[in-house]
């Protein structure tokens, strides 16, 4: 049953990939949605039977790579972590498959789109269900491939092709870190199976654990878009919006968080790596949020928002609160998936328009999209009691309680900014006066049901996803469920801090204060956005010109892409050209020079024959005229002659070396 979860979408991808263009064509969604739906059912079935009997187990398929003593199997692990991820991936994935029927309707590459989407599901499910690092890596790079294919789906656009390439390459840099970590793990444990490694992890030295932890996190930086490798994610918005929702918001980009949580036992031994992760996460959260404040492209705002929210998740893991990180991963999948799908609905209605300056007042035309989008905005901004509030508040509280006051400050500030830019987006798009072009105005319509139904389901989850697992979530179902998978860490943490059992107390004053701060930040952001964009819509322009330098800096995203281009990309290409010159002039220069010497010496020896030997011979007499002719042929430029000369030379040289240095 477990094997069916990734296998079904794989079959779907194969069928659409092989027969889609010729035979299936516009019926591709039947195959793809069917495969994904069945996969979801298989996941539900596995999940419910796991709930009944919460005992982790492995399902072995076959031996993949085995060279003594290395043995890697294609095998799946069923445990709380992998089950939660499988449910999120197949569930959200299924909704987005349905959404795609409407969204991609009429596209020339319809079958191709669904083949890629199914392939993505396969890779993502292999990633989360793998029982060993290498299979996880297969999924890890597999989702990277699908991301490449789907970002570049409209490959006639240069921007899309560039973004696809950039995404793959930046991810490969991260993957290099991942695979080196794998080698370190193998070097220590002689196994790459999670179970074996975790059971041996306590024997790791701090140095080794730190090195592995940081290298794994480098992998996560790539996949989950953290500083300095986040640059690909904003560009990835070139893909269809449904893809942005599925891959670049809800599932793939959270793989890094899942991977870190999976390795909690190693991180428990590496406080330095954890601090590093927490700092990178917090800084990324703030940095990306600041960029999101001023962007005009609706998808760009959401992209930077995703980077920022992923920062939260790493902050959470970095302070040891893996469950909170995973919890935020889940709620984020709901509301960010919803936000992207909603923005897709808007873009669809506006015929491809993405600039929020040409939107506004859309609420009247698309009520369902507007309502669900409002819910998602409330959720991500952290307004109680929606899903985002619970998970974000928990992360901030854990950060504060674990003694990272500065990081907590950054997190709280980011929460304020998040609320501001999200309500800015909401107001600019759906509320206020319409700034839509006149010729588009009368085309405006609510999206078809294949789009609105997934929106409604995700809206429901965005509202109740936070409390559904229990109230309050800190002591709710999800904590009880996930803790066994990450228990080793919690134990280590609790021993480290000497603060066991703190979860059992009632809400303390500290908890309530922190909660009040979170809510306050969210409301302040809401109020500011309200004032700026609904009450006094002229203000933002004035402020932008007053704070011109800051606005320019943020609007241009700190010029990070430009800096990377001139610091890394261009010098690298220059180096490539230099090396090629070296190849042509340096190495080949020597080779051609040597051949010229050989030719020259052949000619010279020919001349020597002619002038000297022939001279002597001529002196003796004209009897040997024929000799003369034969010898003259030496300088006719045949390759064999030069080769022969060279061979003789080499032979003489090389034989001499046997006689010179060693005599017995």
């Amino acid at each position: 049953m477990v094997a069916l979860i990734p296998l079904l979408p794989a079959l779907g991808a194969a069928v659409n990939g092989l027969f889609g263009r010729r035979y299936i064509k516009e019926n591709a969604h039947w195959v793809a949605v069917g495969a994904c739906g069945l996969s979801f059912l298989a996941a539900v079935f596995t999940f419910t039977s796991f709930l009944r009997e919460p005992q982790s187990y492995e399902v072995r398929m076959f031996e993949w790579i085995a060279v003594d003593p290395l043995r890697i199997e294609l095998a799946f692990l069923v445990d709380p972590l992998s089950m939660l991820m499988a449910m999120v991936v197949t569930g959200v994935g299924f909704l987005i498959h349905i959404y795609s029927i409407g969204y991609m309707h009429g596209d020339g590459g319809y079958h191709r789109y669904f083949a890629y989407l199914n392939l993505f599901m396969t890779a993502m499910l292999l990633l989360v269900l793998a029982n060993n690092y290498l299979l996880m890596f297969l999924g890890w790079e597999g989702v990277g491939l699908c991301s490449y294919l789907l970002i570049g789906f409209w490959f006639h656009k240069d921007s899309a092709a560039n973004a696809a390439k950039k995404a793959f390459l930046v991810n490969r840099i991260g993957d290099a870190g991942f695979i080196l970590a794998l080698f370190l793990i193998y070097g220590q444990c002689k196994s790459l199976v999670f179970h074996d490694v975790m059971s041996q992890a306590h024997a790791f030295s701090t140095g080794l654990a730190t090195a592995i932890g940081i290298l794994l996190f480098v992998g996560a930086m790539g996949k989950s878009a953290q500083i300095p490798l986040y640059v690909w994610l904003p560009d990835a918005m070139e893909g269809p919006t449904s893809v942005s929702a599925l891959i670049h918001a809800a599932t793939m980009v959270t793989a890094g968080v899942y991977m870190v949580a999976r390795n909690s036992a190693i991180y428990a031994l590496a406080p330095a790596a954890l601090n590093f992760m927490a700092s990178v996460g917090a800084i990324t959260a703030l940095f990306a949020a600041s960029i999101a404040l001023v962007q005009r492209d609706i998808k760009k705002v959401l992209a930077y928002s995703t980077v920022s929210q992923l920062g939260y998740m790493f902050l959470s893991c970095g302070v040891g609160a893996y469950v909170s990180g995973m919890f935020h991963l889940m709620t984020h999948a709901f509301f960010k998936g919803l936000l992207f799908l909603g923005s897709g609905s808007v873009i669809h209605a506006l015929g491809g328009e993405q600039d929020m300056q040409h939107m506004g007042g859309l609420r009247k035309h698309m009520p369902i999209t507007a309502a669900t989008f409002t819910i998602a905005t409330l959720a991500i901004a952290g307004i109680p009691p929606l899903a985002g509030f619970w998970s974000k508040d928990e992360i901030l509280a854990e950060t504060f309680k674990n003694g990272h006051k500065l990081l907590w400050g950054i997190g709280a500030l980011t929460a304020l900014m998040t609320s501001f830019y999200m309500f800015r987006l909401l107001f600019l798009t759906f509320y206020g006066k319409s700034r839509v072009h006149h010729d588009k105005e009368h085309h405006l319509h609510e999206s078809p049901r294949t789009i609105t139904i997934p929106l409604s389901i995700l809206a429901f989850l965005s509202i109740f996803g936070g409390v559904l697992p229990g109230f309050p979530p800190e002591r709710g179902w999800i904590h009880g469920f996930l803790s066994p998978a990450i228990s080793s860490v919690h134990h280590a943490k609790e021993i480290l801090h000497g603060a066991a059992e703190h979860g059992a107390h009632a809400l303390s004053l500290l908890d309530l204060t922190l909660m009040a701060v979170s809510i306050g930040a969210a409301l302040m952001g809401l109020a500011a956005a309200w004032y700026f964009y609904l009450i006094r819509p002229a203000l933002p322009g004035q402020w932008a010109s007053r704070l011109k330098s800051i606005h320019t800096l943020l609007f241009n995203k700190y010029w990070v892409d430009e800096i990377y281009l001139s610091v890394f990309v261009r010098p690298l290409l220059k180096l490539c050209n230099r090396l090629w010159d070296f190849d042509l002039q340096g190495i080949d220069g020597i080779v051609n020079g040597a051949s010229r010497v050989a030719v020259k010496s052949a000619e010279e020896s020919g001349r020597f024959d002619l002038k000297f030997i022939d001279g002597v011979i001529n002196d003796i007499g004209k009897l040997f005229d024929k000799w003369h002719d034969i010898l003259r042929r030496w300088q006719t430029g045949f390759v064999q002659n030069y080769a022969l000369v060279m061979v003789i030379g080499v032979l003489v040289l090389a034989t001499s070396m046997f006689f010179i240095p060693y005599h017995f």
Partner: protein
Amino acid sequence: MTHIFGTPILTLLCFLPLIGTLAIVIFTRKDEEKKIKNIALWFSVAAFLISLLILPRFRTDTAEMQFVERAEWIPAIGAEYLLGIDGISILLILLTTLLTVIAVLSSSTAITDRLKEYYGSLLLLETGMLGVFMALDFVLFYVFWEVMLVPMYFLIGIWGGPNRLYAAIKFFLYTLFGSVLMLLGILALYFLNADPAFGSGEHTFNMITLFNVQLPFHFQCWIFAAFFIGFAIKVPVFPFHTWLPDAHVEAPTAGSVILAGVLLKMGTYGFIRVCLPMLPQASEFFAPFVAVLAMIGIVYGALVAMAQTDIKKLVAYSSVSHLGFVMLGLFAMNSQGITGGVLQMINHGISTGALFLLVGIIYERRHTRKIQEFGGLAHVMPVYAALFAVTLFSSIGLPGLNGFVGEFLILLGAFQKELWYAAVAVSGIVLGAGYMLWLYQRVMFGTVTHPENKMLKDCSRREVLYMAPLIILMLWIGIYPKPYLRLIESSVMGTIQSLKRPSAGPDLMAMASQTPPETAALI
């Protein structure tokens, strides 16, 4: 067992293509194009089928040579006719016979001139290549080695591109230079083995006997140096690689496929067949040096590939990088490294062979290989774009395709040898993705800018047919490499065993007379 259906199977396989050559030369006239092509195709297919026939009878539980055939040849110098295969050579033989069939198929529209000579050369080349992988006598090995050289020289020099003469001569001289040094190494082994202090005491070129030669360290080093240059040119190892881009660019498509797919493996095969087992201490001693050259090759090849404007040249430089991986794996000298290296030889043959075929497909349509002449091809040639994509991802080692299995094992082996080897080599993987994806973007993506490209025909049925087995192999080896790894396993273990053999230094010479060399005779 040496016979299948009462025939000495290796001899049959090895010389069948030669018979094909003779058949073409004797029984066809110049203008009988169809007949020439058919003879070439049927002989290459027959050779492929025979090589498949060996497979079920091949034993994977032993490192010994199998299907050994032995006959007197030149008794005066102790040279014999001796053929045999093990787990390393059998895969290379299968690769050779498969790629020859594909090369024949891919030539049918590309080559229109002097067909008789062309197909004759191609089949003669196959005999040479198969002979090298089967020969267990050094003289025979050397003869086959040189036999390969001549038809390849003609393939490049006659049916090649505009600069073909320069390329052909460069290829010929480079290789000849290397093979002369190799010959020296062979002679040194031959004479030293005749000394009972080091070897069996007889004058023989028998490789199986020579596997047990125990030379003093400094002798090993000199002989290693001679073999090294010979093989390194063939691989090619940096800085001996500059013949490769020229030869590849000028060679006709089938020539490039064979050159990249099989001929480059001669060098790496030589290292694993000769250097590692016969000169273990020297190999150990030079391993860091070779590894550094291999790593330079990986990074340098990738960087130079990125600068290319000609698709074929880009693929050629990518070969330098990939063969660097193979060398790194072999000289990691552990089971994962060597297994990965051997598997990667096959993988490189499949994916780079496929890349050259793909380049040939558009060259045939447009008669140019300049990257800027293309763009947007995915619109007009969707099947071609899909085939190219799979091949490209196989080449850059995407997990789930063949390249990854080899690269991963190599990197793991290198890591266990020296941590930083793997760290350097991993950068090659990142760069590899760089030049390949950039190439793909420039050729396939964007809009069709050149009017000539608007009407390009997508792959024909024949083209899909000869690409299909390679694509299937990429997926098969990527997902279920076990059968391939099993074939290699025992032989690699045997090689590792022989690496652990003690050397006979001056101080060991006295002992040598008391402790006879390990029992050897496998025949």
